[in-house]
């Protein structure tokens, strides 16, 4: 069994699923927003989004021309074989997907400004590794748009202000971001750990379905409060005004240093593209987020 080949094929399919087909939970949230939006301009924007989602599926073309920076989350079973083959396989899948789907080449050398042309480059696609018990490999592809990435923030808040400091931090970030991240957006928030850890956790929460709130009731309430507050801003779809500014909020946390209160907000645009699959030890594959088309 050639794990490299299997991973390459699965990763290619995941990229294709992610960029063409929005997850069902996001589609449902957009439909609900369209039904409830009261601003005419806002409604026009949501209608264009829904029409576009349908057209992307019909023509099997990427839902947004910004097919993002490619990030893979790998949960590797500690007993899975040939884990050293995965990195290369993911790079190959990225190159193939760029050419065949196609994706927009979005990987630029920051010093020479040269675009590599195939979505690969130093550290790109980025791989997040996690070792878990078992012998299967779970792969998740996230293609993250630049517009929503440009407004992500990390802040070192004052511990004495506690969760209230966090609430203000996130609402100020939403207001400052305004129209830029293609609202309605999804907010991933995290506290604790350190500057790098909080933004990493915040971004990872964007992989969760919108209808999955935090199991801790107190944190789930914080998610709801932020959701309602963000939608009170009136920024609206595409920043043209309206009551739909965010589709969902996820919160995660790590314990913090007594002197630090790191906080991070990761924004995702409405085109929240993600897809996951599990490769079992016998080579069978389960697609977890999309039915393979």
């Amino acid at each position, binding site marked *: 069994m050639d794990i490299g080949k299997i991973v390459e094929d699965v990763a290619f399919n995941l990229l294709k699923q992610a960029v063409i087909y929005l997850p069902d939970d996001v589609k449902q949230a957009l439909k609900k927003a369209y039904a409830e939006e009261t601003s005419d301009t806002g409604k026009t924007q949501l209608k264009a*989004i829904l029409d576009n989602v349908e057209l992307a599926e019909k023509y099997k*073309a990427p839902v947004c021309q910004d097919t993002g920076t490619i990030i893979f989350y790998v949960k590797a079973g500690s007993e899975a074989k040939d884990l050293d083959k995965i990195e290369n396989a993911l790079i190959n899948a990225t190159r193939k997907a760029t050419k065949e789907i*196609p994706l*927009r*080449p979005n990987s630029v050398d920051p010093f020479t400004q040269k675009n590599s042309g195939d979505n690969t480059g130093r550290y790109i696609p980025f791989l997040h590794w996690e070792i878990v018990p078992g012998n299967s490999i779970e792969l998740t592809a996230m293609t993250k748009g630049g517009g929503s990435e440009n407004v992500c923030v990390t802040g070192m808040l004052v511990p004495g202000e506690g969760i209230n400091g966090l609430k*203000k931090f996130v609402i100020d970030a939403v207001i400052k971001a305004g*129209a830029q991240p293609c609202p309605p957006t999804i907010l991933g928030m995290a506290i604790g750990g350190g500057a790098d850890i909080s933004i990493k956790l915040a971004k990872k929460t964007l992989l969760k379905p919108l209808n999955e709130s935090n199991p801790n009731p107190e944190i789930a309430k914080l998610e709801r409060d932020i959701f309602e507050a963000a939608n009170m801003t009136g920024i609206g779809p595409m920043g043209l005004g309206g009551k739909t500014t965010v589709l969902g909020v996820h919160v995660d946390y790590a314990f913090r240093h007594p002197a630090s209160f790191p906080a991070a907000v990761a924004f995702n645009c409405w085109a929240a593209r993600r897809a996951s699959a599990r490769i079992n030890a016998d080579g069978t594959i389960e697609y977890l987020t999309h039915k393979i088309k």
Partner: protein
Amino acid sequence: MAVYKFKTPISEEDIRKLKVNDVLYVTGTIVTARDQAHRRALEFFKQGKPLPLNLEGLAVFHCGPVVSKEGDKWTAVAAGPTTSTRMDIFEDEFIKNFKVRVVIGKGGMGKKTTDAIAKYGAVYGAFTGGAAILAARAIKNVRGVEWLDLGTPEAMWIFEVEEFGPLAVAIDSHGNNIFTDVQKKVEEGKQRIYQKLGLTT
């Protein structure tokens, strides 16, 4: 909220009829330009070199498309707008020098661009961010591409379009800017949101 359908080249007189919240569809020629193409176009102007195409009366589209090529023929696969604020540093000169009548993008633009739009006669048409296939379906032909050395997202793509839209007129030639209005209202309502969250400021 009126609906307008204009063909390029668009005259200054026609474009000045538009007001914010109107909806515009453009038929004819639009060219893409992001940061790098704006910079190069303005350098050309400074050096007295002509652009590959006369842009007078046309629309400039803030877009880095997904394209595919079969033989010599390019196709726009996905072509939604990019965030326009990055082009704010160039756009007033761009409008002034090249007399484009429509700037298409997402997210809005700042005061310098709003002033240039009023002074030289243009509009900013917001196309729904991410609605890349809706846009691509209105692109009937890729007439050409210039400056491919900048990479496909940053190159200048020349598209023939039919009823490209809906574009929400978000900045008009009378000095109105929806984005600024929304931002102002959002700022005014901020204290109410803080109160809801139990924050004392």
